[in-house]
Each structure stands twice: as C-alpha cells, then as structure tokens.
C-alpha cells in the first residue's frame, strides 16, 4: 500500500463526495458546523465579557482567576470529555437531564474547551491596549458603554484571534466528542469522530477524504474571520 496513493485516492474521493453532494457527508459536515459553531458562539458570549472584566477590573483573586483561565486553555479535550461524561451519565449528578450521547452534550464539552481559550486570549488582547488609551477615551467624555465598545474595537486583532483559536480548538477535537457523543451515526457523528472511526476500521482513503473536507471547511471559516481581522491592516 503506497502511502501517497492513499492521499491521492483520498483527494479523489473527497472530490466525488463534494460533487455528488453525498448525503451522509453533508449531514456529518452540517452537524460539525452546528456543534462547533454553537459552542464557539456560546464561548464568545461568555468568554469575551469575562476576559474584559478580568483585564480591566482589579479585585482580590484576579491573578488566581486569570491563572485558572490560562490553565484551562491547555485542558486536554479527552479529559474534558471524560469528566463531562461522568457528570452526564444516568447515575451521575446531571444524569436526569438525559443529555448523554446527544449533540447537546458535545456542545457542552466543546464550550468547556473553547471558553477558557476565548477568555484567555481576550484578557491578553485587552491588556495589550496602551493603558493611556483607556484614559484618553474617558477624558474625551465617553460613557462606560462607549469606552467598552472602543476598547473592543481597539483590541480587534486579539479578539478575533480569540474567536479563531476557540473555534479551531473545538472543530479539531475528537476525544470529548466521542466520549459524550458516542459517535452515533445520524445523531452525534461529526467529521473528526467519523475520521477516527474510519481509521480504526482501516478505511484510510475515506478517512483522508473526510479530512480534506474538514480542512477545507476550517480554512474557509478561518479565512473569512481573518479577512475581518486584517481588514485595512497592513504591517507597519
């Protein structure tokens, strides 16, 4: 088995799947977007405000909280999956919610993975703003909301990096998704878990094809986000 022929075969199969609009591939891809997109969105809604507060407000334990967030950026997805699974099992603390082996469980696990990433990058992005700017804006008579809006715009580079990093972290993970989702066909299978399954079955060409599709998907989305991030920015 020539390794290169696997890649070649994989590319050809990816093309076939895309052109024919293979229903199973579309279903898996759509679910991938749904799960990771929702998780990223929730993580941004929760993570950006927290990051801003941590960056701008002084309070006891601030350093500890930021340390925990930064630690959370490196959480192994498989560990997140295991712990979430334990909580969601029938006889676990949240078992009565009946969420195990559903896309919702996958979203929960992915939020746990992405949220610290988004928050951590946001803290760094806001803290990177020249502190003089903070006072300048206030001196110009801005109210609290205008201040916030302007600071966020100023930190746009870092904030979009936060979103891209959060999204990248969850669309690529497989450990948590398999544990809490179960990789069930038609219900909780996403691109990464499908690829993992195909590899374990020895179907390397199909695994490569799905990999190509996943990479394309991720590239398109991050390219769009990058476009917005880099808008009108040229390196000095």
């Amino acid at each position, binding site marked *: 088995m020539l390794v290169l022929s696997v890649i070649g075969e994989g590319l050809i199969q990816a093309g076939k799947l895309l052109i024919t609009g293979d229903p199973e591939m*579309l279903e898996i891809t*759509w679910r991938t977007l749904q799960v990771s997109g929702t998780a990223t969105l929730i993580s941004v809604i929760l993570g950006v405000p927290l990051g801003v507060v941590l960056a701008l407000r002084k309070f006891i334990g601030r350093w500890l909280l930021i340390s925990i967030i930064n630690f959370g950026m490196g959480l192994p997805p498989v560990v997140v999956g295991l712990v979430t699974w334990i909580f969601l*099992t029938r006889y676990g603390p949240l078992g009565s919610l009946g969420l195990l082996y559903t896309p919702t469980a996958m979203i929960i696990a992915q939020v746990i993975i992405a949220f610290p990433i988004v928050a951590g990058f946001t803290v760094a992005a806001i803290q990177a703003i020249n502190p003089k700017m903070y006072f300048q804006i206030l001196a110009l008579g801005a109210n609290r909301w205008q201040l916030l809006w302007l600071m966020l715009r100023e930190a746009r580079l870092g904030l979009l990096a936060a979103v891209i990093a959060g999204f990248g972290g969850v669309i690529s993970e497989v450990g948590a998704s398999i544990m809490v989702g179960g*990789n069930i066909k038609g219900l909780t299978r996403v691109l990464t878990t499908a690829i993992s399954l195909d590899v*374990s079955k*020895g179907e390397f060409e199909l695994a490569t094809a799905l990999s190509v599709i996943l990479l394309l998907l991720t590239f398109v989305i991050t*390219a769009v986000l990058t476009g*917005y991030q880099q808008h009108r920015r040229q390196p000095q």
Partner: protein
Amino acid sequence: MKTKKFWVIGLILVFLLLLAGCAKQPAAPQQQAPPTPKNPDLILSSTTSTRDTGLLDVLIPQFEAKTGYKVKPIYNGSGAAIALGEKGEADVLLTHAPSSEKPDVDNGNFINYQLVMHNDFIIVGPPDDPAQIKGIKTDTDAFKKIAAAKSVFISRGDKSGTNTKELAIWKKAGITPKGSWYQESGTGMGQTLQVALEKKGYTLTDRGTFLAQQKNIQLAILMEGDKDLLNIYHVEQVNPQKFSKVNADGAKAFVDFMVNPDTQKFIADFGKDKYGQPLFYADAGKSVDQIGK
C-alpha cells in the same frame, strides 16, 4: 474590496451548507408505521470488533423498523462495554467475553443472558511465518513457538474480548509474555492488524474483522480451528431491578430480536456474498457445549 469579497464568499458557502443541511432532513419512514414504544431510546453497549464486522449496521435498522425503538449503539473494547452494563449506563449488551460476563450473570447485574452466535479467533502473521507455526494444532503450542522464537507479537492490551482470549492462551501455555517482541497496541482490532502488518508481527484476531480488512492487511492466516479459539457472542439485558433507569422493555425486545429465527438466519448468511464465507455461525437456543459441532 478584499474584505467584502471574503465576507461574500464566506456567507455564500455558509448559506449553501445551511441549505444542504435543511434539504437533508430525513423523510419519515413510509413503510407500515412501527409501534412507538413509551420509551423509545435504547442504549446498546457492544464492542468495536462487533461494530467492524458491519453486522449491527444492518441489524439495528431492521430492529428499529420492526419495533420503533431508536437504538444508540456505543462501541468500546469488551472491558468498557461490560463496565457500562455493570453501572446501569446501558440497557442491553452484545458482548463476546464470556469469562468476563460470567461474574455479572452470577451476581444478577445481567439477566436474560442468551447465546446468539459465534465466530472464531485466528492467529495471523507475516506470510513467511518466522516462528513456523503453520500447521500447529493447538493455540497454546502456537503461542509457545512464537515466544520461543521471540517473534514480534502484537497484543491489543485493552481488556477487549480478543485481548482476554489472548491472555488466557498465554496463561494456559504457562508463559508470561514479556520483552521487546511482545507489544501492546492499546487500540481496536482494525488498527492492531495494521500495526502487526507494519511490524511484520503475529496477532490474535477474530476472523470477522480480519475478513473485513483483508484487502488492506496482507497477513496470512497461520493457525485456526482449535476449539479453544471459539469467539462466543451473548446478548444480555441489564437488570432493571438493580438499575431503575434502564429501558427494560426495549432491552427485552432487542434480546428477543437477536434470537428469533429470522434474525438468526440473517446472521448465518451475513458476509457470504462479500467474503465467500459467513462471518458468523448462528447459535441461538443451543447450549455452549454444542457450539462448533
């Protein structure tokens, strides 16, 4: 402007995917509407080797169409498959590690323990057979020769049914496998076969997975037929009296389905068209001693 182009391309693609997602909503099944049970969700815990044979991919939809249950199959190695049952986290199990199942049957964790089918384990290895085990009659003798020759042997090392069987053979042969020749892959059967191929080593595998993978795995079958190598599948319910949250009706329906004559006939024929031989032998109703006769 560059940004506008990005936005437009991005939005169009997302829109297309959205459309595809909407269009893909599966149409409701139009054959005679199956009964809708009170609790339609059924968690089936089984093993990756069972999954890899493809049998359940065909049987589960049949079961769902017939009974209206919606099965969530969760596949792990036998160790985890059985452990899920022991914790009441699954409703029904299809497993093939009788020695690991026995304690749970004895202590009442599992009920309605029914024989379903069997296939067999085989020892595969490099076609040139460095340990020269071809033609050996018993599995313990074959293992002894492999250990003596210190030929590379890949163990699954994951408490799966296959792994449990492998360890039992070493034990019977009176050997504790140790050394650089004995390697544990810690992965499923498909991948373990791949490792064995790459390292030109021997491994114990169930025939079903091997047949399903044969086009990718150019290893030879070097030892087969020992009665000790039978791989026996049982289906069992998790005891609802011990675990109140199990779906007992659904589990019973699945057990009944697996042993009924139509399903048994299907199992007996499964794989014939693709591999020239069936992947399983159907055994419902027999006692374990009668298998293989």
